[in-house]
């Protein structure tokens, strides 16, 4: 597993997502209310750019007509066929046994740790005063 430095935290404020290509893999990093998530930008169904879809909540029901809406902003909906995936785990909700999106752990690390390595910093200049978004691939 290689740790890649994606961006300074300030460049990815809450509600934004960043698309990048790491070793030929299309990856998207999301900041959702201060929490960071990484997902392979490829839908396991038919290969669409999954991470370009809208972020919605999870609709569940224990009784017809009554909807419990949770995980607000944590479900990504594929722009091609509307399938829902949990951004934390990659779990699909229409066919969880057969389909799962690839999720990657993302953390925030202080610059002092990042400069020590072993990190791949891509083209980002790292300074010890800042915090950085780091993804494990």
């Amino acid at each position, binding site marked *: 597993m290689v740790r890649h430095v994606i961006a300074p935290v300030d460049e990815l404020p809450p509600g934004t997502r960043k698309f990048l290509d790491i070793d030929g893999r299309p990856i998207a990093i999301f900041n959702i209310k201060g929490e960071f998530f990484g997902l392979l930008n490829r839908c396991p169904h038919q290969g669409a750019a999954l991470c370009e879809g809208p972020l919605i909540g999870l609709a569940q029901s224990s009784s*017809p007509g009554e*909807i419990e809406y949770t995980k607000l902003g944590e479900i990504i909906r594929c722009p091609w066929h*509307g399938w829902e995936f949990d951004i934390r785990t990659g779990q699909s*909700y*229409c*066919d969880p046994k057969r389909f799962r999106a690839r999720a990657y752990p993302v953390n925030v690390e202080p610059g002092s740790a990042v400069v020590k390595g072993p990190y791949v910093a891509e083209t980002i200049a790292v300074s010890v005063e800042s915090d950085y978004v780091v993804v494990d691939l």
Partner: protein
Amino acid sequence: MTSPIAGGVDCDLHPAVPHLTSLLPYMNDYWRDQVTTRGMTDLVSQSYPTHSPISSRPDWRPAQGKPGADLADMQKQALDRFAVRFGICNPLYGVQMVFSEDMQDAFCRALNNWLAKEWLDKDDRLRGSIVIPTQSVEKSVAEIERRAEDKRFVQVLMLVMGDMPLGKRAYWPIYAAAERLGLAVGIHAGSAYHNPPTSIGWGSYHIEDYVAQATAFQTQLTSLIVEGVFARHPNLKMVMLESGFTWLPAYLWRLHKFWRGIRMETPWVDRAPLEIVRSNIRFSLQPVDAPPDPATLNRLFDHMQSDELLLFSTDYPHWQFDGDEALPPGLSPDLVRKIMIDNPLKTYGRLEFAKEATP
């Protein structure tokens, strides 16, 4: 051909009401006078025009009167001929067409009492379906509760084309009553003609109506599944009668595909539609809309992914097959047993218990 085996259950028989006046003894004084003084003679629906080929096999057509109106004919041509243990009577009479819920209720009660007295009382093998005045859910539930005391009634009968989509929650008290009382809900081909018999409007020809029954069944299945009827009533069995079943795989592919994309619209549908069909929906055998080629038919059964979906039916006296070919060619003996005996007995829980409890 595949030979039927003895001891089966014919799940779709149609005893005919000879004439509206046949129901007069089963109406109260008020309705008896209404029918008589208004000069009402019969309730004739376009669904099965008397002289249309579909309405009766030529060799089952009586010299006089309506096909299916004579018990002795039904015994000889269907019950004895196919050596069944039980036959379920699904009267198709135009009571659903009436717009007054009061009149509809009076006619349904009369029809159900007529069935008990003129048919069920006269042959131990016969079982009945409760015809309900669907314009009033309250009256429908009352009629179900009244007639369900007679354990020979094993099913509630509705038409595939009524007033509203059948999944609508206004109808749910009907399904709750059926589930509570151990009755299946049968949905039979036919229209109340309160809406056009196709979703695109009124056609010109009988063939348009008859072929469109299959699409009506599909639309109703979608409604029942996505509205959540089986999430609320997991033990309810619904039987599609005279629906055909060869369309099922392609229809389910489509429903499944779109459910996966807009699951969040109906999150109470927490299983794939195919799984709901397998657990809650059954289909009567006739008509079989497939070429008489065992390989084609067995491929279709593979697609259906279950051997529990089909229930034997002759659709008597409708003309769906000739001779004794009630079963399509190429069925394995195991499947014949399931279709004719096991599946109906599992679907209609009341069949096995009706004998000792019959009043």
